[in-house]
């Protein structure tokens, strides 16, 4: 029977026809010839439950997944917003019913107890404690042998088990049984892992009627940005990252995120960047049947003192430039607006790092400043990797006499060199000094037309029999 296809889940109609989870497909087909079977798709189930979880953020910021088919919501202090737990439950049920989902809800003190109650409750009880005590021992979700052992010992419900001394249970069935029991009874609690970490600053607007116009939704976002800016000002902070979430009435959430290089609480700037982001979307924001909740959160904040504009406008000019940088980072992508940061090395192509402007601070290492009176010794443009060239030299280890690059010959009229740049042997993994990398001999050359190049021979003649030549950079 091992290779048989089995039913993983059945819907209401199938259950009323006597089908159950776990029976083989062939069996089920015999009983119900009209059976519609769909292959089990774990990834799709997971994606769907995640989508539901995201939608549940409307109730509480602390939503955890309880795989494979559960959600745990920490509604501590949230229920009164929905007229108590009953109102919350009714709202959830109504929304899930609209999505054609069957839900089993349970409220309990600990996540474990809620999990058990939602899945194993068979009788109506007058309060939570009694309900838990009436649960079967299967609600502990131990391995099948342990559950079987408990049943053989005559312990059918949690209440019966709880009457026994804990030490005895631990000795017979293991400490984890006791932990599970105490969590069920509410004596111990494990924190849930919320799917989305709590955000410090948040502004949101709910609508009685779903908003179907994107323009209006954007306008509301502007008001929310002003609200968030006010909240940030109270805390003497500015936001570095803003996240707007458009909750559609059919459960889909459309998140938009922007980042700024300086902390800000200027709503106009936030909205301009949001518009930039919306323009850059491959498919525009689709309101569907309308948004019923719009939320703007600020997950990342930094201290920002209250500022006063300087009379000469210095701060204003800087602000204009950072705003431009933010706008371009939003449009082109954050890794496309960069600043060059110095690195402490002498290998030419590793001397600089181009880092996204939003995250790079000015160089920690100092740039090497050249001596006055010298011509430029480093090129303005560098090829990485260097481009191979064909070189004719008058003496083997001498300067190039003539070279060919990109199918063109260049006669060398003037040169300076070699400038010898050794490899960083101290960074080699094996630490072998005698197996250091190849040394490069750099020449600054000028051709007959006055074009200036930076070329090098990769390897000395005693390091390599026939060293290759490369063009590494172009001087202005």
């Amino acid at each position, binding site marked *: 029977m091992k290779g048989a296809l089995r039913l993983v889940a059945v819907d209401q109609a199938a259950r009323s026809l006597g089908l159950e989870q776990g029976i083989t497909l062939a069996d089920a087909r015999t009983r119900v010839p009209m059976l519609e079977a769909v292959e089990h798709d774990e990834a799709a189930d997971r994606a769907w439950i995640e989508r539901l979880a995201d939608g549940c953020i409307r109730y509480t910021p602390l939503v955890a997944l309880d795989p494979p088919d559960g959600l745990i919501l920490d509604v501590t202090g949230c229920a009164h917003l929905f007229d108590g737990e009953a109102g919350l439950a009714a709202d959830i049920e109504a929304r899930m019913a609209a999505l054609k989902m069957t839900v089993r809800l349970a409220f309990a003190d600990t996540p474990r107890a809620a999990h058990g109650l939602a899945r194993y409750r068979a009788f109506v009880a007058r309060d939570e404690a009694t309900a838990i005590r009436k649960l079967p021992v299967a609600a502990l979700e131990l391995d099948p042998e342990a559950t079987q052992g408990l049943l053989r010992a005559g312990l059918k419900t949690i209440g019966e088990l709880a009457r026994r001394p804990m030490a005895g249970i631990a000795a017979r069935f293991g400490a984890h049984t006791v932990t599970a029991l105490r969590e069920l009874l509410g004596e111990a609690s494990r924190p849930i892992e919320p799917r989305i970490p709590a955000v410090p600053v948040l502004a949101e607007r709910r609508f009685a009627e779903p908003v179907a116009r994107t323009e209006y939704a954007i306008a509301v976002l502007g008001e929310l940005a002003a609200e968030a800016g006010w909240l940030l000002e109270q805390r003497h902070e500015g936001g570095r990252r803003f996240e707007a979430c458009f909750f559609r009435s059919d459960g889909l959430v459309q998140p938009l995120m922007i980042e700024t290089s300086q902390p800000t609480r200027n709503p106009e700037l936030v909205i301009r960047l949001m518009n930039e982001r919306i323009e850059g979307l491959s498919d525009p924001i689709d309101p569907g049947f309308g948004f019923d909740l719009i939320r703007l959160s600020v997950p990342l904040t930094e201290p920002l003192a209250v500022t006063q504009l300087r009379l000469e406008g210095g701060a*204003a*000019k*800087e*602000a*204009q*430039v950072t*705003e*431009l*940088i933010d*706008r*371009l980072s939003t*449009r*082109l992508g954050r890794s*496309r*607006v*960069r*600043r*060059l940061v*110095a690195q402490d090395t002498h290998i*030419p192509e590793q*001397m*600089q790092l*181009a880092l996204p*402007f939003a995250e790079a601070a*000015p*160089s920690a290492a*100092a*740039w*090497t*400043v*050249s001596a*006055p*009176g010298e*011509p*430029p*010794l*480093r*090129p*303005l*443009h*560098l*090829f*990485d990797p260097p481009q191979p060239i064909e070189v004719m030299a008058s003496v083997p280890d001498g300067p190039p006499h003539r070279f060919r690059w990109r199918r*063109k010959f260049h006669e060398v*009229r*003037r*040169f*300076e060199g070699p400038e010898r740049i050794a490899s960083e042997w101290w960074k080699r993994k094996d630490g072998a000094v005698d197996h250091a990398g190849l040394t490069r001999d750099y020449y*600054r*050359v*000028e051709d*007959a*037309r*006055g*074009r*200036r190049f930076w070329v090098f021979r990769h390897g000395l003649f005693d390091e390599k029999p026939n060293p290759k030549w490369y063009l590494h*950079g*172009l*001087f*202005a």
Partner: protein
Amino acid sequence: MRESVDSLAVIRRNLASIASGRLLSANKRVATGHLALDAALDGGLARGRVHELFAAEPGDEPSAIGFAAMIALRMIGRDLPIFWLRSDEACRRGGQLHAPGLIELGGDPDALVLGQAADTRALLKSASDAARCPGLKALIVECWGKCPELDLTVSRRLALAAEKSGVTLFLLRLEAEPLPSAADTRWSVSAAPSIPLEADAPGPPMFEIELLRRRSGPSGMRWRLEWDRDQIIFREPAHIGAVVPLPAGRPVAADPWRLSA
């Protein structure tokens, strides 16, 4: 009747001078340091305008880019960012910008903001945004290839934005032919043999530039310029050591900004 004709002539003359940009005061122009060139340009290159730079021949692109970087360096003061917009195409064909090389021309890489657009459309859109930002002084935009997107309308829009905000825009047109545009000046830059140092080593950067077109002014002249990195100024190669005007906006002798860097 006669008087009104006279006043008409005066108005005409005024209009002509406004149109030709002669009303730009001296501080609206930046002197290159090359006396003959500055004289021909009425004091230097205009700020808040678009200047187009072409490479004279294939292979002269590094010189055109370097020349743009040098004028931009002359134009910016301390701590002001220099904005450089490129495309992926530029990185592939012309190589990466190398910060130590920028220092060798007298620049400060920490004041450089590098934007890289995926295609010409994104590049021009970003350029028009940057040209509208009054906090900037110099903006370099590298366009490789023919760029059919860069038509007269776009060029006119860039010119208007630059005039309004005061950003000086250097539009590098590499591997392209001059087309009608709204640029204030149009240059063709080529490399020239440098004055050798001892042991026949290549000297400071030398260029030969030709003024292809100038709005309201004579064009077609050629000059040869040498870049002096220490003073951040251009010189006439034949008159090395001659008296040159003080560089605008910085002390002559030492450059505290670079020493502190």
